[in-house]
């Protein structure tokens, strides 16, 4: 369980004035939950995710993960406790292969069949990508899907994805939503937090948190929140009804 207590994060603007990005935000995310954080641009969603991962340090407040105060803990220690973060704009690595990056994430040398599993779950054909370098030869969408595959390989207890759908084509997006659904349906103590504006991702959530101006403006179950957000509740949510095209993930 993740508990965020009275979290604040501010930066100085060009005129040296304090600008509150996260403002006295409190939030609890229970185990086995699928939570979507949504809200307007500039509202503090990505900053909140970075504060949870430790990429940014809060000005004040507390972050507790499974009873451990991680507020001042470095990024890698949080990762070892079981927090993972899929970046909105992933890093590129000259000379590092996809297989190597996945192996670092999994903390072991991954056999090809396991890499194949992680890559196919994000709609990529393993044989085409395993030995590719994670460099500028990959398109933005390919890089994004490999980023998500690293989180699948790391298998954290709490996985935070920052706009995972951005830059991903429609066919791969179907595969991705299916993957998120499978993780959630496993109900094995893993929680997923996704920052998204995408209706079909929001539709997967148990809980929806609306963040605006650095605060939790509203939160509640999917059924409570969807009308408030102006979305119509989808009628087709049975995973068996989701069409997975015969794309490269089948190879």
């Amino acid at each position: 369980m993740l508990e965020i207590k009275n979290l604040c994060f501010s930066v100085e603007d060009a005129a040296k004035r304090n600008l509150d990005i996260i403002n006295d935000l409190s939030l609890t995310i229970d185990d086995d939950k699928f939570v979507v954080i949504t809200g307007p641009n500039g509202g503090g969603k990505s900053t909140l995710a970075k504060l949870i991962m430790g990429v940014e340090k809060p000005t004040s407040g507390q972050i507790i993960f499974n009873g451990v105060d991680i507020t001042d803990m470095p990024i890698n220690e949080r990762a070892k406790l079981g927090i993972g973060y899929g970046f909105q704009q992933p890093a590129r690595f000259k000379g590092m292969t996809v297989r190597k990056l996945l192996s670092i994430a999994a903390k072991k040398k991954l056999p090809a069949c396991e890499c194949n599993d992680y890559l196919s779950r994000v709609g990529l054909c393993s044989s085409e990508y395993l030995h590719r370098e994670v460099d500028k030869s990959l398109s933005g969408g390919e890089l994004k899907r490999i980023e998500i595959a690293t989180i699948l390989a790391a298998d954290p207890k709490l996985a935070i994805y920052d706009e995972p759908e951005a830059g991903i084509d429609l066919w791969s997006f179907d595969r991705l939503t299916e993957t998120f659904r499978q993780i959630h349906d496993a109900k094995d103590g893993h929680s997923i937090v996704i920052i998204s504006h995408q209706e079909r991702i929001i539709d997967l959530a148990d809980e929806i948190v609306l963040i605006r101006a650095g605060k939790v403006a509203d939160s509640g179950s999917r059924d409570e929140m969807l009308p408030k957000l102006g979305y119509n509740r989808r009628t087709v949510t049975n995973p068996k009804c989701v069409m997975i095209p015969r794309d490269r993930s089948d190879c």
Partner: protein
Amino acid sequence: MAKLTNIDAHLLEAIAELHGMPTGAYNIRKDGQLLERHNTANIEIATKTDYPGIDIYVKPGAKNETVHIPVIVTASGMQDVVYNTFYIGEDADVLIVAGCGIHNAGSKKSEHDGIHTFYLGKNSRVRYIEKHYGVGEGTGERVLNPTTNVEMEEGSVCEMEMIQLKGVTSTIRDTNAKLGKGAKLTLTEKLLTHDKQTATSNMKIELEGDGSNVQVISRSVAQDESVQVFNPLIIGKCECRGHVQCDAIIQHHAIVKAIPGIEAQSEDATLIHEAAIGRIAGDQIVKLMTLGLSAEEAEKQIIDDFLS
């Protein structure tokens, strides 16, 4: 069979990934003397009569052959100059593994200057791997100044990978190549310098035959107070393609100077150069930390892969 000391074995492993004597043709040189040599049916290694060094003859049509010619220097104060000439027959396909390891336990300078010349016959293929490595608890300098000359006949293909990863106090590397019609050369240079080491790499690649193609890839890491200078020049004299790419990671107080040059002497020459020098990107370190690596582990991983 010559006996290898522990130091010899360590150096051979570092420069040629050898555990004991290799298979195929080989010539192992230690402290200016022949340690062991082996010829095969298709490859003859002969001692030069005019200069110190060897001539290596690969018969036309020889396929899947290997030649190992490592040099080890273990005597402090040793100044070794060697001329090795490779004659690759038409249609031959060969892997050549060279390299020099210096172990200097003393206070005097140890130096090895290898002058390698390759003549590639028509449609032949060569893959050449050269590793340089220095080690030793002594204060004596470890100096390696290799010169590589390549002449490529029509349709020949040459892949050269030259690696210097540790312990060489100073190096001046000169590489010259002339490419005939349809010849293809790929030159990959990987370099890591640290402490107060210096490294200079000069290249002059002349594209003389229509359809010739060269790709130069330089990846380097400069640490501490080391200094690196890259000076590759591609000259296109005909319908040809050339691409030179220098990528360097700079750390601490190091200096890297990259001057990739292209010279077109024909309107049909297509030549491109690019160079980038920069520190390790912060987002790379942060990403690997989110996967559980410490900042130091992340940095090492990034450098290892960059030079892999």
